[in-house]
């Protein structure tokens, strides 16, 4: 069992503050204004707010028990940490083949066009609560064991 990030679509308001928090957390400065305005690399969030009419929810990596992205990765960049269960992506190794993007059934691996590599959720290593969960103003994202 591991804690994962879950979306509650009934209270998600589609503000996308979770995307901003994610992008800032994975930026160099971790400062919201500097990350967007001063850093040379535009920050890329690892989560996606899906939207159709009133239905909105924030989706990110499910950290699958049998991750397809790991199976298809030709560069060995995608690995599942056996201890924590977190599916990690080593951007240094990433060849930019987009196989993981095509394989992921949830569509939660993002192409970073500037870097020609993919990025994905790492459950905010080093944080007790992922940034997206903390930033949600309506408790529409929860971090829990299910």
């Amino acid at each position, binding site marked *: 069992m591991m804690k994962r990030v879950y979306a509650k679509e009934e*209270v998600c308001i*589609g503000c*996308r503050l979770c995307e901003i928090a994610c992008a800032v957390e994975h930026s160099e400065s971790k400062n*919201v*204004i500097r990350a967007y*305005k001063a850093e040379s690399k535009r920050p890329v969030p690892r989560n996606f707010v899906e939207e159709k009419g*009133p239905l909105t929810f924030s989706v990110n990596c499910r950290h699958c028990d049998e991750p397809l992205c790991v199976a298809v990765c030709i560069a060995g960049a995608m690995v599942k940490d056996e201890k924590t269960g977190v599916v990690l992506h080593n951007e240094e190794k990433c060849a930019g083949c987009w196989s993981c993007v095509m394989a992921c059934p949830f569509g939660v691996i993002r192409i970073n066009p500037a870097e020609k590599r993919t990025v994905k959720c790492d459950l905010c290593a080093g944080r007790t609560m992922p940034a997206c969960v903390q930033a949600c103003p309506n*408790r529409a994202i929860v971090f829990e064991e299910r």
Partner: protein
Amino acid sequence: MLYYDQIKNYRDFEVQRDEDRCIRCQVCVRQCSYDVHEYDEKYDEIASDQTKCVGCHRCEAFCPTDALRIKKNPSEFRDNALWTPQFIKNIYKQADTGGVLLTGMGNSYPYPVYWDRMLLDASQVTNPSIDPLREPMELRTYLGARPDSLDIGGGSGGPSLKTVFTPQIPVEYPILFSAMSYGSINLNIHVGLARAAEEMGILYNTGEGGLHPTLYKYGKNTIVQCASGRFGVHSDYLNAGVAIEIKIGQGAKPGIGGHLPGEKIGPEISLTRMIPEGTDALSPAPHHDIYSIEDLRQLIYALKEATDYKKPVFVKIAAVHNAAAIASGMVRAGADVITLDGFRGGTGAAPTMIRDNVGIPIELALASVDERLRREGIRNRASLIVAGGIRCSADVVKAIALGADAVYIATAALIAVGCTVCQRCYTGKCPWGIATNDPYLAKRINPEIAHEKLANLIRGWGHEIQEMLGGMGLNALESLRGNREKLRGVGLNETELNILGIKHAGA
């Protein structure tokens, strides 16, 4: 602005965007339900149409970089004490449309707020004050009619009470959530109100829009309302709560009815109100079966019959000129609880002229009704709840000292869940997700968060009420009820002091 009707440029607010801080995340664009902000991808720019801004501050509150400020438009007409901008702008508006000016929430004119002209007493030297953290402090209140006298029986087992009481509702705090219909506010708020009422041992009021099937389980903390439109009123509904409130009038719009437009009557509201989808929900100005105190008595007793005399019947009126005489009639007609709604009471929609010019201050109405019922010897036959502009726990304490048994709050409850009193409830586009049934906007209220915030508000006020009571050397709210000796007026004239039944400070 180009292509705009010129008067729109006399806008109320100004949107100030700090370009050094704005990161173009477009949270403001998505949060504004009035389409003020618009992102232009080509120029990577957010343009704000300030003429559409209602001053709700949603974008400012949600901006992750603190880049937005909503300020009053500093543009000024030439000073004129009579022709203030409000009157000038209203005339422009009506000259354009020929319509009735609409607004939401309560009276916003600077009429005197009597709560702010009354001060509370405290113990010094001659009587000890009480620390509520160390000693018991009773806030529980019973709502319902009390008998004229108690019949005590004797016997071998000791004394016993022989008088049979009519139904009494215990509430743990003298603060109830006032009537707001399902339709005027959405189900998420109703769930929050119901859960908070359950947790805190108080009551919430359905308003006249019926009771959604999922809320029947909160019956022990529910007052069901029966208003002139009789929406959603049926036998199960009447028996669902602990009390029934007949709404004759509302403080924000005494003497007039209500109108929920057909566009807002979706499937769930249609089901709850028992009217077809898409039809206008019109509440007539009067109850068509009540034209006298005798008629009111018939409805009170019809409702008591329908509920087997197990539910107290509340009767709510707007505080108007002859409130005291009317209240006397209401008690004699069999009302167990009288609700007085002052002219600052809120609404989801009312004609501006009515909201701002009809009715009287609740403080004066409360004092005169309590005084009249006492003089007639019938004060015990009904509890007295006041509503309309209760802003803080001190207002509650002052109301109790003036003679109220409890207060209703609604505007304060909505502010607790985010409302900024922008007074645009009637548009149905509430950016805070409160006065709207738009599914995209209504989600902005998470019932779980609303429940916590509302319960916290009651808890906080409860602590403060206990502190104020303790300071006066009282250990029960009952000892303060109608105890006007604990109040002193400041800056009030002789007539006002007489009506309020209080002395001036220093006397």
